[in-house]
C-alpha cells in the first residue's frame, strides 16, 4: 500500500496509523432496541398482564428497563472483556474433577450469582424471582452477545433446572433446585455418546437398578458435554463445585431404540441429608476437546462409572421428557445465531465509520463523505453498506422472531402451571402453545444459526485484512458461532423435523394455521397501510405464505414417488420458511416504526432506520426465496442417483 508522508500525517484514525488495531470496538447492550421490539412490536406489557401465574405484574416497563440496563452494565463491564481472554486461553483439563476455566470466568460467575440473576424466571418456592421466562430470555440475550461461551455455563444449567423442575419427584426438586436456581450448583445435559449424536436411538449408557429401584447405578461415556465441569468452586465463592448432570441411559431389558431410554439425575458430588456435599460420585471428565471456537466452554468427555443416579420422570420415557425442552433449547440456540450477528454488526459499524478508504463514487452526495479527510470512511461504499445492512437485518429480524416465540413460551409455562392444577382449558391452551412453539423453533434455530454464521463472516469481511487478525475481535465471532448450525440438531435435522415431523406427519395442520394467522395480519395491514411500502410488503408476505403452502404440497407429491424427496428438499424448505418468517417480522417492525414516526414523539432516526432496513430486507435479501423455491423442487434423482462408489476420489 502506497503511503506518502503527507497522507500519513493526515490519517487521524489510530487504527490506520498503527497497522494492527490498538483500539477495538466495545459491546453496548442494545436496551433501546430490545424495548422497542418487546414493547412496540410485540406488546409485552399487555402480554404480561394476561399471565395468570407468572409474575407479569412485577415486570412493569420501568422494571424491565432496569433489569435490562442492570444486566447490560454487568455484561459490558465484566463479561465482554473476558470474551477475548476466553478465546485466547481456553480451558485446561487439570484432573477428572477440575477444569480450569479462562481467567476471570470464576469471578464473573461469582458476581452473577451474587446478583441473583439465575433465578429470574423460576418459582419463588425454590428461591427464584418468578418473573416471566421471556424476560429471562431477554436477559440471556445480552449475556450471550457479550460473551457467548461464559453464558453457556448458566445457560446449560437452566436446561438442567427445567428438566428437573418438570420431571423430578418432589424430594429431588427440594434438594436440587434451590442451589441450582441460586446458581451455586451448575448443571448439564448429557445425551450424546461417541457413537450417536443425531441418532439418540443408539444410546448405550446403562442404568442398573439399586436399592429396590430408589436409585440407579449409571455407567457409560458421554461426549460433547459443554460446561461438563469447571473450577468455579475452587476457592470460597458462590459456587461449590457441584455439577448436576441430566443423563440419558438405558435400563437392562428396556425396549430397543428410543423407546427404551430413560432420564436420570446424576450429581458430581453425592448430597448429604443436610444438603451439604458428600463424596465424589465417580463422575469424571476424561478429556476436553480442542475445537474451532467456543474455547471458553470446556467440551467434555464425561465418564460415569457406577455413579449413583435418580430417575427423572417415567422409565423409558426419557426421550419424550427431553423433547419437552427441545423447544427452549432450540430457542437458546437461535439466540446464539442472532446475537453473533448483533455483536459482529456492532464491531463492523464501529470500524466502518472510522476506517478511511477511497472515495464515494457519487462524491459529496453521500452521507458520511468526509472531504477534509484523506479518504472517505468505508461506510459510504455500497458494498460495505450491503454487508452491514444484511447483518442488521438478521440481528434485528432475529430478535423479533425470538421475542414472538418467547411470548408463546410464557403462555406455555403459564398454562402448564394452571393445567397442573386441573384447569382443562389451560391444558388445551398449553398444548396449542406447545404445538406453535414446536412449529416455530426448528425454523428459528435452523435459519438464525445459518444466517448468524453468514453475518459473522460479513463482519470479518468488512474489516478487510484487519478482520483476519485476532486482536480485532471479529474472526472469533465467526469461529464461535459456527457450531450453532450443528449442535442442538444440525440444520439438516431441523429441516427434516420441520418438513417431515411437524408438517407432513401432522398433515400440514400447523403450517396451515400459521399461514392463516400471518395472512390475517397482512390483510389488516394492507387495509390500514400507513405507506405504500408497508402495503407492498404486506402483500409480499401474504403471497409468500401461499407459495409456502403450495411448495409443501408439491414436495408431498414428489415424496409419494420417492420419500427421499423430503430429505432432499428439507434444508431449502427450511431456509424458505426462515426468510418468509423473517419478512413477516420485518413487516411487523416496519408497521411499529411507522406508528412511532406518526406519533412524532420518539427518536425519528431510530424509526427511520427500521423502515430503511425493512426495505433493504424485502428488496435485497428476501428474493432468495425465489432460488430456494426452485431448488427445493429439483428432481430427487439429481441428489440420489449417484452410486456410493461413484463418490470415490481418484
Amino acid at each position, binding site marked *: 500500500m502506497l503511503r506518502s508522508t503527507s497522507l500519513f500525517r493526515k490519517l487521524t484514525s489510530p487504527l490506520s496509523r498503527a497497522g494492527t488495531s490498538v483500539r477495538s470496538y466495545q459491546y453496548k447492550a442494545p436496551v433501546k432496541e430490545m424495548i422497542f421490539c418487546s414493547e412496540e412490536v410485540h406488546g409485552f406489557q399487555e402480554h404480561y398482564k394476561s399471565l395468570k401465574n407468572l409474575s407479569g405484574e*412485577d415486570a412493569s416497563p420501568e422494571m424491565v428497563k432496569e433489569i435490562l440496563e442492570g444486566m447490560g452494565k454487568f455484561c459490558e463491564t465484566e463479561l465482554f472483556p473476558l470474551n477475548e481472554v476466553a478465546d485466547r486461553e481456553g480451558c485446561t483439563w487439570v484432573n477428572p474433577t477440575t477444569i480450569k476455566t479462562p481467567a476471570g470466568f470464576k469471578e464473573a460467575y461469582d458476581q452473577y450469582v451474587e446478583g441473583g440473576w439465575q433465578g429470574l424466571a423460576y418459582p419463588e418456592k425454590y428461591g427464584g424471582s418468578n418473573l416471566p421466562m421471556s424476560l429471562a430470555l431477554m436477559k440471556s440475550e445480552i449475556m450471550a452477545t457479550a460473551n457467548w461461551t461464559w453464558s453457556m455455563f448458566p445457560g446449560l444449567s437452566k436446561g438442567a433446572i427445567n428438566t428437573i423442575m418438570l420431571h423430578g419427584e418432589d424430594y429431588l426438586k427440594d434438594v436440587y433446585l434451590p442451589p441450582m436456581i441460586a446458581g451455586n450448583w451448575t448443571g448439564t445435559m448429557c445425551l450424546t455418546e461417541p457413537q450417536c449424536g443425531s441418532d439418540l436411538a443408539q444410546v448405550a449408557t446403562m442404568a442398573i437398578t439399586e436399592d429396590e429401584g430408589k436409585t440407579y447405578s449409571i455407567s457409560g461415556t458421554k461426549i460433547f458435554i459443554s460446561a461438563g465441569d469447571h473450577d468455579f468452586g475452587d476457592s470460597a465463592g458462590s459456587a461449590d463445585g457441584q455439577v448436576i448432570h441430566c443423563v440419558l441411559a438405558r435400563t437392562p431389558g428396556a425396549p430397543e431404540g428410543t423407546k427404551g431410554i430413560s432420564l436420570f439425575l446424576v450429581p458430581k458430588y453425592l448430597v448429604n441429608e443436610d444438603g451439604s456435599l458428600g463424596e465424589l460420585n465417580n463422575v469424571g471428565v476424561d478429556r476436553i476437546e480442542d475445537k474451532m471456537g467456543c474455547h471458553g466452554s470446556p467440551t467434555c468427555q464425561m465418564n460415569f462409572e457406577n455413579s449413583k443416579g435418580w430417575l427423572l420422570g417415567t422409565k423409558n420415557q426419557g426421550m419424550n421428557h427431553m423433547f419437552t425442552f427441545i423447544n427452549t433449547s432450540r430457542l437458546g440456540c437461535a439466540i446464539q445465531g442472532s446475537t453473533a450477528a448483533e455483536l459482529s454488526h456492532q464491531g463492523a459499524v464501529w470500524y466502518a465509520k472510522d476506517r478511511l478508504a477511497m472515495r464515494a463514487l457519487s462524491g459529496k452526495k453521500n452521507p458520511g463523505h468526509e472531504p477534509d479527510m484523506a479518504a472517505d470512511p468505508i461506510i459510504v461504499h455500497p458494498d460495505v453498506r450491503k454487508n452491514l445492512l444484511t447483518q442488521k437485518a438478521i440481528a434485528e429480524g432475529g430478535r423479533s422472531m425470538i421475542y414472538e416465540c418467547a411470548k408463546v413460551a410464557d403462555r406455555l409455562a403459564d398454562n402448564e402451571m394452571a393445567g397442573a392444577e386441573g384447569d382443562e382449558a389451560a391444558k388445551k391452551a398449553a398444548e396449542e402453545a406447545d404445538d406453535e412453539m414446536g412449529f416455530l423453533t426448528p425454523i428459528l434455530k435452523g435459519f438464525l444459526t445459518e444466517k448468524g454464521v453468514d453475518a459473522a463472516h460479513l463482519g470479518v469481511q468488512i474489516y478487510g485484512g484487519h478482520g483476519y487478525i485476532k486482536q480485532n475481535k471479529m474472526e472469533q465471532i465467526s469461529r464461535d458461532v459456527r457450531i450453532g448450525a450443528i449442535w442442538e440438531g444440525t440444520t439438516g435435522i431441523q429441516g427434516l423435523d420441520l418438513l417431515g415431523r411437524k408438517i407432513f406427519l401432522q398433515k400440514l395442520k400447523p403450517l396451515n394455521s400459521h399461514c392463516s394467522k400471518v395472512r390475517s395480519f397482512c390483510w389488516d395491514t394492507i387495509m390500514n397501510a400507513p405507506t405504500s411500502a408497508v402495503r407492498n410488503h404486506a402483500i409480499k408476505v401474504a403471497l409468500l405464505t401461499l407459495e409456502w403452502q403450495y411448495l409443501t404440497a408439491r414436495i408431498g407429491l414428489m415424496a409419494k414417488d420417492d420419500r427421499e424427496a423430503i430429505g432432499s428438499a428439507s434444508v431449502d424448505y427450511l431456509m424458505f420458511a426462515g426468510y418468509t418468517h423473517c419478512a413477516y417480522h420485518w413487516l411487523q417492525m416496519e408497521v411499529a416504526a411507522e406508528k412511532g414516526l406518526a406519533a412524532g414523539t420518539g427518536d425519528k432516526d431510530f424509526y427511520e432506520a427500521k423502515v430503511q432496513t425493512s426495505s433493504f430486507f424485502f428488496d435485497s435479501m428476501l428474493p432468495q426465496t425465489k432460488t430456494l423455491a426452485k431448488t427445493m423442487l429439483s428432481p430427487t434423482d439429481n441428489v440420489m442417483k449417484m452410486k456410493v462408489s461413484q463418490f470415490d476420489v481418484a
Partner: protein
Amino acid sequence: MRVMVGVKRVVDYAVKVRVAADKKAVDLANVKMSMNPFCEIAVEEAVRLKEAKKATEVIAVSVGPKASAETLRTALAMGADRGIHIMTDIRTDQELGSLSVAKILAKVASEESPDAIILGKQSIDGDFGCTGSMLASLMDVPQCTFAAKIDFDASTVERETDTGTEIVKFPGLPAVFTADLRLNEPRYATLPNIMKAKKKKIDTKSIEDLGVELSEGNEVLEVFEPPPREAGILVDDVDGLVDKLKNEASVI
C-alpha cells in the same frame, strides 16, 4: 447515623454529545442518561455504611426532571431506603446552578436532619464541583471534599490533592462529604434488589413546595464544540520545542 446521598441524572459517560442546533445547549434528545458516576460512588459508600451497621437509613435525593425518578430507583436498587425527588424542568446541566442546587439540598437536609451527607465530587455534565462545598457552607457544617477514604470512627477523611492525598480530621457530624474516584467501586444492582426497590418510597416535590428561592441562574451565551485536534508539528531539536512552547503555546 442517618445518611443522605445526592444523585444526579446526567448524560451517560460513554455518549459522544453533540451541540444542539441553536448552539444554546448540548443536544439531549434521545441520548442515553445514567446516574452520575461520582454519585454512584456516593451511594455505594452510604450503602456500605448501612451494611456495616454504622448507618440506619440511607435517603437518596435528586433534583431534576421526571426521569430523575429512574436515577432514584437505581439508588434504591443499590440499597438506599427511600428517595426524595425534587422535580424541575430547568436544565440541570447548565441553567440550574450549583448554588441553587445547594440551597435545595440544604432545605431537604433541614427537614430530614441527616448526620452525614455524601455527594459526588462533581457531575460529569456541568463539571462545576461546587455543590458539596456550597451545601456545607449554607448548612454551616464541616466539609470533606474529594474523599478517597472516610473513617467515621476516627472522624478522619483521606482526601485527594494535586500532589497526592492528605488526611483531615473533621470536628464531628453532621458534615458534608464529596466522593472521589478511589473511595470505592460501586456494586452492580442485584435482581432481588431491583425488584425490592419497586416497593421503596419516593417522595416527589417541586422547588416551590420546598419553599426555596433559587439564586440567579447561569445564562448560557453559546455552546460550541472544542476545535478539532490538529496534526502535530515535527520540531528539529529541543530548542525548537522550548521556543514553540514558550512563544506560541504560552505554556511555559
